[in-house]
């Protein structure tokens, strides 16, 4: 946890001959010219016990103790702590200390960066950060939209009736990316299909996207990537935040957040979200609702305790979502007379985190607890799915250093309890999982080379012992050139029903797998990141390549039988190659541009031969431009994404023929938004799919939804055309806490 690199630079700060110790604490920033001071960082001398907090400009002062040398510990919420040996010489010099943002347990991440989207240079792993400024660029609505201005994560519509969206990394389904909420595994199990909707965008403070297998500390399920979501923190979030949103299709949304302090050590945050799609939308006149009607509610309440020796957090989250889709003639109850889609998902969730700082500096113990209960009921025409999951999770981490902060380690144990029940028509898939595990991770932080080496072993009550080693390396060749390499293993137990529930929107029958066994993959990758200056402005170019190879996988085969969707364990080869090149450049203070190109080669055994996975575009281009006026009162941004050809599954057509379009056409997606800032108010107006590109006839045989040729899963582009939305944000900042140093 105490992941530190420090830059001690002596700077002129002479101040008489009083024996005082002075310095400034900054947070690390991507731009070397910009230094952001850390307010309220704790500075403490271990032997003498003297301590102080930094001022708003990051400065601190201490009385130089008589007994020297002493060890000074610098810590701040959301940053990794650091130590410096203080000697007698230091009384005439000042310390310039740089703390780095920490994303590990149990502390909190503060995205203290200016660039709204950036590669975190210091991380050994390739981590992209999306800050709240970047999240504001796509104003609607929840997590699935949060990735719209990002090239690494793709968001796909899964079918033409349920309105569900799923993410993809490296061309691999979202289930192979571990999504976690503040380092707690989050959207898994029953939430793999509709879970992205359960996290409103206005709750999110920042998102970190790690490519490749992540750290071993947070579990075994990150196979293609790891997405960590940081929600707003009680002590830093807005005192009051209100957001309203409405779009052309009648979707309305309201968000309310508030954070405040309860005494000196406690703080609390309250979050509420409600949205509604009240009107029927059928623009392509196929008799089906293009967007399901429905409403959802989400509330979240969190607490934070910051004491001298311990830190604790706890929170409660409840979510309820109901949707009604399908034919416009569907009344919500009679599934026999019209094709209807009814999805009802709910969860309640509680988490707690406790962290104890041990007497030995930079040693601590963190424990995370999470319990969750969720249900999903989904009707797709005559198919009915019911699912419930009870989940418990505990993760205990001991964090320490060996001699100094160059060598750090984490060891710990985890336990997963998951009681999942799934029933789809006559198929049943109930499972009780109990998975105790142990892990160890060593981090070396040298001047140029840094390395994270981890190993975890888990004992699954059904599938036995599984291990997952992971190695990440980073070498800084120059001040601006970083090269990274990673290799690691991940595994998960598939839930073929909920993971593929959108495939119920078809007349094809499902053929269940004979056996279910864990999916296992190895991921190898590397990246080069070069920063540069051009015409006095900073930019960077990053190229990364990842290869994922499955040892075992649940294959969803739409090729072997035109009348069925066949689930089977992998027999042969399955892999993904992903290459991405991204160029980011700030043209002056006001304009930021980003270009990206991605190439995906995802193949597996389908229909007995090795061929490209369906619905994955091989090429994708991305361009984003952001503009801010000099008085910062107007912000504008635009994103253009171009999706290349993707292989399409073959489907039977009514009357005996088959579909002949082997590949989907190339299509663009354009979105743009303009924001006006007026004191505490922000007003925004934006558009999605501004090219008005729509897939014609997304549903095959829409007239006969109960026929075997009906299919609503062949969706490769938006079903609805241009969307225009408008909204406002009103916020009152959290007043700064005036801290009197506790000496």
């Amino acid at each position, binding site marked *: 946890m105490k992941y530190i690199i420090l830059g001690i630079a002596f700077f002129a700060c002479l101040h008489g001959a009083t024996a005082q110790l002075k310095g400034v604490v900054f947070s690390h920033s991507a731009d070397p010219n910009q230094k952001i001071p850390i307010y309220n960082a704790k500075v403490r001398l271990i032997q003498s016990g003297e301590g102080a907090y930094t001022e*708003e400009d990051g400065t601190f002062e201490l009385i130089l103790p008589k007994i020297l040398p002493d060890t000074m510990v610098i810590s701040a919420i959301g940053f990794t702590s650091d130590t410096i040996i203080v000697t007698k010489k230091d009384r005439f010099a000042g310390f310039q200390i740089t703390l780095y943002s920490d994303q590990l347990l149990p502390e909190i991440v503060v995205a203290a960066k200016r660039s709204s989207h950036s590669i975190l240079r210091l991380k050994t792993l390739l981590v992209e950060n999306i800050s709240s400024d970047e999240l504001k660029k796509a104003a609607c609505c929840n997590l699935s939209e949060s990735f719209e201005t990002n090239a690494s994560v793709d968001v796909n519509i899964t079918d033409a009736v349920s309105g569900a969206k799923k993410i993809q990394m490296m061309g691999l389904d979202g289930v192979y990316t571990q999504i976690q909420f503040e380092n707690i595994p989050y959207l898994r199990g029953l939430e793999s299909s509709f879970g992205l909707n359960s996290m409103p965008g206005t709750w999110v403070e920042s998102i970190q996207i790690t490519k490749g297998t992540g750290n071993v500390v947070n579990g075994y399920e990150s196979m293609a990537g790891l997405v960590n979501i940081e929600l707003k923190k009680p002590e830093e979030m807005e005192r009051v935040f209100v957001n309203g949103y409405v779009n052309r299709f009648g979707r309305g949304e309201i968000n309310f957040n508030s954070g405040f302090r309860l005494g000196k050590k406690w703080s609390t945050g309250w979050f509420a979200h409600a949205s509604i799609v009240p009107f029927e939308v059928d623009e392509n006149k196929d008799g089906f609702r293009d967007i399901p009607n429905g409403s959802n509610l989400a509330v979240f309440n969190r607490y934070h305790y910051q004491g001298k020796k311990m830190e604790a957090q706890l929170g409660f989250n409840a979510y309820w979502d109901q949707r009604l889709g399908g034919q416009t003639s569907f009344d919500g109850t009679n599934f026999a007379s019209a094709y209807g889609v009814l999805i009802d998902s709910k969860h309640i969730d509680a988490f707690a985190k406790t962290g104890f700082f041990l007497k030995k500096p930079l040693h601590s113990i963190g424990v995370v607890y999470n319990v969750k209960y969720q249900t999903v009921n989904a009707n797709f025409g005559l198919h009915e799915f019911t699912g419930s999951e009870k989940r418990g999770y505990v993760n205990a981490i001991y964090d320490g250093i060996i001699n100094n902060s160059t060598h750090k380690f984490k060891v710990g144990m985890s336990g997963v309890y998951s009681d999942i029940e799934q029933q789809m028509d006559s198929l049943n898939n109930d499972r009780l999982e109990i998975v105790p595990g142990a892990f160890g991770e060593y981090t070396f932080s040298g001047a140029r080379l840094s390395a994270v080496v981890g190993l975890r072993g888990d004992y699954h009550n059904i599938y036995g012992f599984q291990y997952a080693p992971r190695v990440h390396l980073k070498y800084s060749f120059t001040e601006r050139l970083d090269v990274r390499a990673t290799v690691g293993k991940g595994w998960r137990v598939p839930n073929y029903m909920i993971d593929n529930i959108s495939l119920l929107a078809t007349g094809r029958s499902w053929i269940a797998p004979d056996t279910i066994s864990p999916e296992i993959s190895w991921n190898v990758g590397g990246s080069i990141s070069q920063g540069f200056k051009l015409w006095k402005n900073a930019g960077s170019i990053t190229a990364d390549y990842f290869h994922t190879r499955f040892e075992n996988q649940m294959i969803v085969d739409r090729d072997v039988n035109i009348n069925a969707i066949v689930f089977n364990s992998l027999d042969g080869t399955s892999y993904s190659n992903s290459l991405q090149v991204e160029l980011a450049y700030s043209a002056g203070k006001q304009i930021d541009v980003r270009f990206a190109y991605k190439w995906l080669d995802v193949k597996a055994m389908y229909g007995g031969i090795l061929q490209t996975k369906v619905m994955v575009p091989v090429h994708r281009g991305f361009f984003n431009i952001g503009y801010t006026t000099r008085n910062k009162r107007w912000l504008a941004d635009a994103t253009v994404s171009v999706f290349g050809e993707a292989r399409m599954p073959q489907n039977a057509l009514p009357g005996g023929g088959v579909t002949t379009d082997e590949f989907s056409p190339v299509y663009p997606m354009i979105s743009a938004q303009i924001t006006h800032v007026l004191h505490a108010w922000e007003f925004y107006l934006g558009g999605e799919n501004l090219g008005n590109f729509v897939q014609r006839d997304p549903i095959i045989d829409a007239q006969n939804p109960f026929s075997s040729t009906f299919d609503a899963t062949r969706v490769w582009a938006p079903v609805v055309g241009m969307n225009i939305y408008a909204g406002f944000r009103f916020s009152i900042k959290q007043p*700064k806490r005036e801290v009197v140093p506790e000496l």
Partner: protein
Amino acid sequence: MILVLAFVANSASAQELKKVEEVKIQTSAKCGECKERIESALNYVKGVQFAELNNDTKVVTIRYKTKKVTLDKIKAEIAATGYDADDVKALDAAVEKLPMCCKPTHEKH
């Protein structure tokens, strides 16, 4: 258009009243919080096109329309925010309201 105007205005003779003026004012700002306070106060003054404070020198650069606002008024606005603006001293009442680190009594390296 504005840029062109500013350029033309700058090269014109001093007697003429320029339409758009750019000035630099030394302030008593101290930290990033001060920068935000001064900039957000000035950016909402009618006639001010933009205000940017240099964090190192604490000099604020302001471009404004001479017909809508005067230099004295801008300085008064800075003073009312709690900071010295060249020769104009900060208003005591406003200084009182500043957070600790922004106050002039606060020691600075």
